[in-house]
């Protein structure tokens, strides 16, 4: 009997490790209760029945979260194909400026970028800031601007809801040189203007001074309201730090796995957020 329980325990542990490798070491409120028991139960090596029970509970929790992931994928499919209309219509007044961060390797797949912008245009987003660290998107600027510079009516080839019509989009292309480097250059401008000449009054720099200096360098766009990150890492990859004080940041996964439904959901969720802007 003891030998059989050991076999069952080993199988459950192996399956647990498999789930843990994909879904982390545990989520949600259930873990908070379970981990308090863990130290007591698992320390008692002789009490195999309790250990088995503990791991069974662990397994059930992990299966629940696996099911949640599957449901999320199904939801995205249903929204994308128009079966679910919960996230329509969108109040795009709150998304005046959308930022998109793309991993530079993924940005080289220009067809994927064009499809993403196609979807955003159909949703009605008008101003987009495109960022990748190495400036790959900057090199594709002419192609993208030319494609989206004129208004188009519904695209029959697209699976997008025909109620949406594409809108003319304005782009800003940004790379790492527009981030920390730009701030350092702006600081140099201020030093040259106020601190090299011994006669002029030395001001105490304010945010307005640095903002004006950045404008002199060509940084004139407003802060993005919402920032989508496409790439393997949940990191904004050096997007100009000065401009994302209160920007909502959403990681969307790899660019090749983008989903129209998830974009709608993310924008809809943002439009429902109450922002305190630091207060």
């Amino acid at each position, binding site marked *: 009997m003891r030998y059989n329980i050991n076999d069952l325990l080993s199988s459950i542990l192996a399956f647990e490790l498999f789930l843990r490798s994909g879904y982390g070491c545990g989520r949600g409120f259930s873990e908070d209760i379970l981990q308090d028991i863990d130290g007591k139960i698992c320390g008692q090596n002789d009490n195999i029945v309790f250990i088995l029970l503990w791991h069974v509970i662990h397994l059930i929790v992990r299966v629940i979260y696996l099911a949640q992931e599957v449901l999320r994928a199904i939801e995205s499919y249903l929204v994308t194909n128009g079966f679910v209309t919960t996230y329509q219509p969108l109040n795009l007044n709150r998304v005046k400026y959308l930022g998109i961060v793309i991993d530079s390797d993924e940005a080289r797949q220009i067809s994927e970028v064009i499809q993403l912008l196609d979807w955003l245009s159909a949703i009605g987003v008008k101003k987009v800031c495109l960022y990748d660290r190495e400036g790959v998107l900057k090199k594709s600027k002419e192609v993208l601007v030319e494609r989206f510079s004129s208004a188009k009516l519904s695209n029959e080839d697209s699976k997008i809801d025909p109620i949406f019509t594409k809108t003319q989009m304005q782009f800003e292309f940004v790379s790492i040189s527009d981030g920390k480097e730009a701030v350092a250059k702006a600081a140099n401008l201020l030093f040259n203007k106020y601190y090299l000449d011994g006669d002029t009054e030395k001001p105490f720099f304010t945010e307005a001074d640095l903002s004006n200096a950045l404008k002199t360098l060509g940084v004139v766009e407003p802060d993005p309201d919402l920032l989508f990150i496409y790439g393997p890492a949940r990191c904004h990859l050096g997007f100009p730090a000065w401009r994302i004080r209160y920007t909502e940041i959403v990681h969307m996964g790899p660019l090749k796995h983008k989903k129209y439904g998830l974009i709608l959901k993310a924008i809809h969720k943002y439009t429902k957020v109450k922002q305190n802007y630091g*207060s």
Partner: protein
Amino acid sequence: MDPSSLTSNKEGSQGYQALYDGLQADAMPKHVTLFLDGASRGQLKDIARICCDLKIKVLSVFTFSSGKDYQNLLMSKHEEIHDVATNIMKLDLEDLSRVSVIGKRTVIPDSLLEIIRDVEETTKKNKSLQIIEAIDYTGRGDIIQACMALAEKVEHGLIQPDDVDENVFQQELETKCSEFPNPDLMIRTDGKYSIDNFMLWQMAYAELYFVEKDDFGFNKTKFIEALDAYQKRSRRFGGK
């Protein structure tokens, strides 16, 4: 990996050993930033203990306030920082935590400033973990004060404007008090998805981990989950 090999304290934290299972010692972040709401503030002591166990070097903390009265805000901060520092010194660890405070000290009352200096002085020799508390700190404000610090150096001829680059700029930010000024992992616990003007410069390549808010609050289990998720991600710091 044997969870006990992760810990610097072989005896203690037995209750946490099961939590550490699955984490990799060589992939641990050096600097973790926590955005804590008021409800989760009480968990800071446990999280600090976990950081010591897992050899995380820096834990920077940004606490939200719900009150708009500035004096009440400072008093609550006074209680919080004194409480954190006191709790840290009561922890049964061989190497205790070093507390540093960043933010605009010019607007903090003298009584609170004295407490801050006392805590910083008392804990400065501790080696295992540095806790950076942010009081009246903003990311843009930090960049501006770095500008002013460099401007003074330019005025005194210590540096030329053209010599100012990213590295020189970084050394003037308030996080210069730390050996690891740039966060590797940022965890926000209140269900929001922004960085709220905190360490804007420093978090260029930080992994962003946003926790959905629930009735049970942020706790040490969720902190371990965040570390686990961090270790599973591919980080290239902008490179290939």
